[in-house]
């Protein structure tokens, strides 16, 4: 018997029981669409995080303090890391060849006040080079070397911060309070887009790092100097990354007097590494979620097996007739297997379409909520989903099909 004919028989019998077939398919549709929506959404999230990080600039290295005695990634955790970097370290790094600039930065959460308006914001204590990390000035000016040298009480607002605090008023020259201390607004940044952990990169306020260190959040290194949380290093290009990384390491080890057998008290991370780490995390999370969603597929496959068993019992007489006119065991086996596989294949196809639609809806909702997420369905996901559907059909169809194939023709013919 030819495959095409078995397939036709299977389709015909599925059509003969439309309601039952579609209810059975519903299980597969729900299972597959859940998995597809999660994988597409996960891929979208990964792309979103990656592009956000890329917005921050890919030719940038970040140097942060780390605790040489702490294990693994815990060394970089704020609680573990002692303050080890200083503005002098930043200047030393700035002298390394291929380094275009350094932006030492201290960061914290603050409360901004202007008149009756209060706003929670992220403060960046930094130097003029900060704007080389991808910011432009919309009006006024950025923090100057002179501001840094004389610890001026001046602030530059991110575009969102300015909008929220001042609405339509011109912020330039206005006095605002940062954690109850008065600052003069000297400039506003233009919009950069992107966000980190829900905080828009435009919702910041920048002040001179020296002012930050002395007036807002004093913190000292073990040597008694003012501490720097991180140093952004702008490198001339990707090809110089490795050399610069090595030079920074040598420079800082010398300056911090670290013996050869001791570990660094700082960590150098490139944006590429951060992107890689985030991709890994989102990848693991979406695989984990997809694994949970595939419990739905397991339930669906039990449903298929159940229906196929009912179908075999109901059609015992048909099986008897087919055997009486010459159907072999494998003909009957093939017929019922194909029926189960077709059922789940069609269900899987519909599930892919439905899951894709679902993930588009999720993207739209996420975008409206401020996360410009774009769900992405890769061909690999589709192939996996189709393969899994067919496998489920075959796996849950094999036992009922074997029962059908084993029926004795005489008993089957006399079955009422």
């Amino acid at each position, binding site marked *: 018997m030819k495959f095409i004919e078995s397939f036709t028989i299977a389709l015909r019998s599925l059509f003969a029981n439309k309601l039952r077939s579609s209810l059975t398919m519903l299980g597969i549709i729900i299972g597959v669409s859940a998995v597809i929506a999660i994988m597409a959404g996960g891929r979208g999230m990964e792309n979103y995080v990656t592009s956000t990080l890329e917005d921050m600039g890919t030719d940038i290295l970040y140097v942060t303090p780390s605790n040489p005695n702490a294990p693994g990634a815990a060394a970089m955790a704020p609680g573990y890391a002692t303050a080890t970097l200083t503005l002098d370290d930043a200047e030393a790094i700035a002298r390394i060849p291929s380094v275009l600039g350094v932006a030492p930065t201290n960061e914290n959460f603050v409360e901004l006040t202007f008149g009756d308006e209060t706003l929670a914001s992220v403060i960046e204590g930094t130097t003029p080079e900060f704007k080389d990390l991808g910011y432009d000035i919309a009006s006024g000016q950025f923090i100057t070397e002179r501001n840094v040298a004389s610890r001026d009480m001046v602030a530059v607002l991110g575009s969102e911060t300015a909008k929220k605090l001042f609405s339509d008023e011109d912020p330039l020259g206005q006095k605002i309070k940062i954690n109850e201390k008065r600052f003069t607004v000297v400039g506003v940044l233009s919009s950069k887009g992107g966000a980190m952990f829900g905080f828009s990169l435009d919702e910041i306020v920048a002040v001179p790092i020296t002012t930050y260190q002395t007036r807002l959040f004093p913190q000292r290194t073990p040597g008694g100097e003012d501490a720097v949380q991180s140093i952004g290093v702008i490198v001339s290009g990707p090809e110089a990354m490795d050399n610069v990384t090595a030079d920074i390491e040598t420079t800082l080890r010398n300056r911090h007097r670290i013996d050869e057998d001791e570990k660094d008290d700082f960590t150098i991370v490139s944006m590429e590494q951060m992107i890689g780490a985030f991709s890994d995390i989102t990848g693991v999370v979406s695989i984990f979620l997809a694994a949970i969603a595939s419990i739905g597929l397991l339930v669906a496959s039990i449903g298929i097996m159940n229906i196929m068993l009912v179908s075999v019992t109901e059609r015992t007489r048909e099986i008897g007739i*087919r055997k009486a*006119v*010459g*159907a072999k065991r494998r*003909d009957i086996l093939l017929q019922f297997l194909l029926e189960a596989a077709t059922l789940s294949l069609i269900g899987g196809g519909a599930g892919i379409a439905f899951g894709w639609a679902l993930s588009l809806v999720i993207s739209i909702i996420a975008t409206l909520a401020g996360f410009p997420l774009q769900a992405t369905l890769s061909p690999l996901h589709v192939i996996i989903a189709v393969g899994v559907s067919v496998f489920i059909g075959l796996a849950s169809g094999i036992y009922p099909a074997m029962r059908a194939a084993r029926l004795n023709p*005489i008993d089957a013919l006399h079955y009422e």
Partner: protein
Amino acid sequence: MIELENITKIYRMGKVEVPALRGITLDIKQGEMVAIIGASGSGKSTLMNIVGFLDKPTLGRYLFDGADVSRLSDNQLAVMRNKKVGFVFQTYNLLPRASALSNVDLPLIYGGGGQKRKRAMESLERVGLATRAKHKPTELSGGEQQRVAIARALVNNPALILADEPTGNLDSASTAEIISIFRQLNQDGITVVMVTHEMDIAEQTQRIIRLLDGKVISDEKVA
């Protein structure tokens, strides 16, 4: 064509052994038209099932066209059912959702070979039902359904037609029609073996074999 030697069939019902056939020895020649009669429980249907390759004897030897077929595998029996015999049942045994034509070409699906539609149509023409090819069994009378079943039995051009009480569910007019079809097929050279419990039908064949309790008690030519 059919040589049965001491065919015995014992069914096991739990621990009880029920003998259905107790040593049947028979010879049916090519071109014969034979009736098998007997009370219910006499073993007629069991005998037909064994002759028609639906069942295997517990003991004894079955030669079909000189070849021993009593120890064939299930798959080999399926091929024999498909190619060598056409079976006609009392209850027609048609697929209820398939058209007459699809019912007739069913053996061709499992037997292979080309021109399925054409051969199925020819078979329907042979029983005078070409105009009903698209009808489902439920749209046909009992006599017509049985003619579809005969067309299905004929579609692979078998040398032997086995009919198990083919007129048991039919009125007298349809019965006469069916019997005349069998007689025509027999004149065309096909061997016909028919189980019945109606003497007047048995008398329209050439030879009557009478069974009782799984044994042949008489075997005589019709005058």
